[in-house]
């Protein structure tokens, strides 16, 4: 009986460099480093010509202008061929009028899928689940989302996360639950008793020393 060896690969984690790759896409051969200096949303879908994925691609195309305003590019991926991707995006445009403006990786050998932990055998041994990797301009992984095959992604949440991360980077603050741009942000917790006492005198809106908010 042939022994099946499973290769153990450490999955990417938040705060770590995104694993480098070179992949065939609908926009030619792309490397991760081609996106250096811009933010990138690398996302996988289970398969071309499937209903939930089609609604997601239309939704990603619809938020693409908003993402571009924020300096963010999109890069899709599935275990399908370039010809399949091309046929699918052409079909989507023909049937719905929505043009898919971003590249899609044809990961037939599953190289990138395995590198990023996009195949979850409990869901499917051949298809990628709905992953979202938000990678910043320094190519560090900032957010990872996993959705099951049956649940389409929420584009509002993806935009909200981008806004929250970019606000955090620009202002050294955190964002509270359900935060939206324009709302108050959270001031990081003080590290010393002196800092805790000082912050209460600084005019912030505080519930107590550990939870203070301010307007930007």
């Amino acid at each position, binding site marked *: 009986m042939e022994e099946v060896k499973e290769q153990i690969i450490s999955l990417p984690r938040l705060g770590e460099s995104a694993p480098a790759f070179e992949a065939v896409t609908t*926009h*030619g*051969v*792309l*490397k991760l*480093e*081609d996106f250096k*200096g*811009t933010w990138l949303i690398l996302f996988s879908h289970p398969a071309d010509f499937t209903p939930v994925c089609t609604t997601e691609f239309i939704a990603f195309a619809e938020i693409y202008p908003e993402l571009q305003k924020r300096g963010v*590019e999109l890069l899709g991926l599935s275990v399908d061929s370039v010809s399949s991707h091309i046929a699918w995006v052409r079909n989507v445009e023909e049937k719905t009028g929505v043009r898919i403006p971003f590249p899609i990786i044809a990961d037939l050998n599953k190289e990138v899928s395995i590198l990023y932990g996009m195949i979850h055998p409990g869901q499917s041994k051949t298809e990628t689940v709905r992953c979202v990797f938000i990678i910043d301009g320094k190519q560090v992984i900032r957010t990872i989302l996993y959705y099951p095959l049956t649940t389409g992604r929420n584009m509002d949440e993806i935009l909200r996360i981008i806004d929250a991360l970019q606000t955090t980077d620009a202002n050294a603050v955190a964002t509270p639950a359900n935060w939206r741009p324009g709302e108050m942000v959270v001031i990081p917790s003080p590290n010393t008793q002196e800092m805790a006492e000082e912050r209460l005198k600084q005019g912030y809106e505080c519930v107590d020393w550990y939870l203070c908010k301010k307007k930007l």
Partner: protein
Amino acid sequence: MACISPDGKPTESGAKMLRALKSGLGSPEEIAEDTGLPLFRVRSGLRELAQAGLTIPQNGNYKLTDKGAELIE
């Protein structure tokens, strides 16, 4: 190939990049701004054009080769 068609001629985006190089631009950032193409497309396109002998990489920038110049005349 995104920048070169199977017949060896540059695609529309490939021709845009070659023309930008001919006008004296050299960095991927400048070429992206001039052509309106996304920076990632320009980086991968210039690499592909270099593999085809139409451009030469030099310290992160690119120069047009004689062969590349001939293609857009």
